[in-house]
């Protein structure tokens, strides 16, 4: 009785919800991967983005809506490296989706394709909430998008071979456009090289490695810990000895600590979009980097 009820309900719901066109269902954990998928797959996929750029990707709850969306996902595109440790595995488990789990073609972790920075030599919570596999904020080095885009396109081809030519041509177009853009960004960002700045969270290591900015202090006393007044005071003392040009935070972060530092150290506060969609001009991946570099340059020259 119970079984036939379930079967009936199932068939009914399947009939109601079966999509007419068989576009690939993509579940992107962060907006940057949704944007990259869009660059590579355009309208061949339906993309759902689990978080927006104004949310801290570490602190996401396994909301019912996310579980429901993950249920139908054929491809999950996430950062990996334990960034989504506290919510993605739970969502995938609860969703009863078997196509998009670890080890399946439908499970894509961008961090697998880049060289990780800051892999901790030892893991101890006394040192903060470290990620064992390294700093997961890999997307602010534009060069990282080459291997990730290539791997993601290969994954799209594997899951949707009918559109192989389409994905490959999109990959080529993206790679070319991206190369041109990188040349432009590197030229624009040349004055940033060696410029000292203060970061609120250890989120810009890949950007530092790429553009040569010099991060002289972090406002979080330990990764993932809220900045405390005592630590901020230490930072102020440090900045008196070796001044910084600006204090940088991501749009989703608590504005108080960086404002506090900006006022006392008399340096501008620069708010970076961090991901696609946080600001007016960061509508896509190109806009994200255009805006990021423009904001850093503005911050550097404003004092």
């Amino acid at each position, binding site marked *: 009785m119970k079984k036939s009820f*379930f079967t009936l*309900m*199932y068939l009914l*719901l*399947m009939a*109601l*919800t079966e999509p007419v066109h068989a576009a690939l269902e993509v579940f992107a954990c962060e907006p940057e991967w949704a944007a990259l998928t869009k660059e590579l797959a355009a309208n061949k996929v339906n993309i759902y983005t689990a*978080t*927006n750029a*104004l*949310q*801290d990707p570490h*602190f*996401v*709850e*396994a*909301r*019912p*809506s996310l*579980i*429901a*969306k993950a*249920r*139908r996902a054929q491809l999950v595109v996430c950062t*990996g490296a334990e960034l989504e440790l*506290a*919510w993605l595995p*739970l969502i995938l*488990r*609860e*969703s*009863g*989706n*078997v*196509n998009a*789990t670890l080890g399946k073609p439908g499970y894509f972790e961008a*961090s*697998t*394709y*880049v*060289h990780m*920075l*800051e*892999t*901790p030599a030892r893991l101890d*919570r006394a*040192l*903060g909430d*470290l990620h064992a*596999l*390294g*700093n997961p904020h890999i997307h602010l080095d534009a060069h990282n998008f080459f291997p990730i885009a290539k791997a993601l396109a290969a994954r799209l081809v594997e899951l949707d071979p009918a559109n192989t030519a389409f994905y490959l041509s999109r990959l080529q177009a993206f790679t070319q456009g991206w190369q041109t853009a990188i040349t432009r960004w590197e030229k624009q960002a040349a004055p940033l090289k060696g410029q000292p700045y203060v970061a609120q969270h*250890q989120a810009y290591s890949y950007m530092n490695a790429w553009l040569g900015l010099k*991060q*002289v202090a*972090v406002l979080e006393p*330990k990764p*993932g810990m*809220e900045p405390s007044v005592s630590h901020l005071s230490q930072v102020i003392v440090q900045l008196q000895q070796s001044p910084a040009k600006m204090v940088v935070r991501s749009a*989703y972060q608590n504005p108080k600590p960086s404002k506090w530092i900006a006022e006392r150290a008399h340096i501008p506060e620069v708010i970076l979009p961090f991901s696609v969609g946080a600001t007016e001009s960061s509508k896509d991946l190109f806009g994200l980097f255009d805006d990021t570099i423009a904001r850093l340059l503005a911050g550097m020259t404003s004092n």
Partner: protein
Amino acid sequence: MAIYSGSLKQAMLCVALSMPLNVYAASDEDLRDIREQIKQLKESYERRITQLEQRLQQAEASRQAEATIVQAQPPAQQPNRSAASSVSAYNPATSLILTGTYENLKQNPDVPITGFAMAPNNHGYTKGFSLQETELSLIANIDPQFRGEAKLALSPDNGLGVENAYVQTTTLGDGFNLMFGRFFSHLGYLNEVHAHAWDFVDQPLVYRTFWNNQLSEDGMQLRWLAPTDTFIELGAEIGRGLSYPGTNRQKNGLGSSVLFAHVGSDVGDSSSWLAGISLHQTKRENAQSDAVPDLLGTAGGVSNLFNGNSKTAGVDFVWKYAPNGNIRLTNFKLQGEYFQRRENGTLTYNLTTPDSYSVAQSGWYLQGVHQFRPRWRAGLRYDRLNSGIAQVGFLNVPNIISNYGYTPTRTTIMFDYSPSEFSRMRMQLAQDNSRQGLADTQFFMQYIMSLGAHGVHKF
């Protein structure tokens, strides 16, 4: 440095030994050669020492910048594959929860809630300082088909209990999840939440009296998630009736069953909600309650025995709000649950006089918790129970209290501070009017610390 000083010593020794022998015989040319060699040696060591000094400076600088993190060398092997160096690499994710309280109660907490003397009163309070349950949790995938999870509760009086020990399937697909073993029932919202994740020190009164804090089951659970954009989950559980109101019978077949449905969604970026209904039923056999007050006013109460059916229906609702959905900064959670239980059967008064007995009891709570700034939260909870009016068989009319005419209530405020995701300190104040004539002001201080594996962020 030892290597450099060693070879430096050797070189010096060579020079020193060769010099006295050759000093007189040495020609100008030889002298030049020797001087040249010494000069080269000197330069070489100076260069090395400068290099060393530079490296030292660099090391210190990077340590200052980030004391905890070493700049990774570009990995030689495939990135992100940590070396599975030993058998321990397959060890389950382990975590340990440490909790303790300081409590200040004016009244004896063991006095049962008025009208609920036949329900559990497992309040968990201890006056003064006390260690609370220590929870050890082990979680891992068993193989590609199964996942296992065990939560062992080490009680402060040296007992070890199996709180949860279950296996989940991971490959059924199509939205199906099967679970078997011992688990917290999925009914309601709060039932499956472990004590360390509660927003208050204690459970709502309705959970204490209706589910002995949490309904635990030995059995199976099947859940199915609909392939819709709205979260729709249907589920069923069958089990032996392990915990109250089940009576843990030694019997083939089913001891209890649960049906539940949950629906949830987001409203914009900032709000999300989850609502559910649940049904529970079990057959109670020889359920004995002691110290139950009666109409005769027997000192210390009497012992009654109940045999019959217990059916419970519940509704639950949770609404969460965080600006832009960014829960780290500020968020607000409103939750409420209502349960109604109907019991129907035979009550044996004082273990001697059996006659029919039926009663419908209900209870609800409503609570709000506000994280008003990162790390700081405040909460308010209101509890209310209704003991109902019992239909008592003729023989027991003069014995059993059918209507207590009292509404147990409690109001609780809570304030907590979480230095990190892994630690929390809480202060709680409750005005407890759950026992007639025993109004109590209860004060609690609590710590909850979590060691080991990072917990999940459940909704």
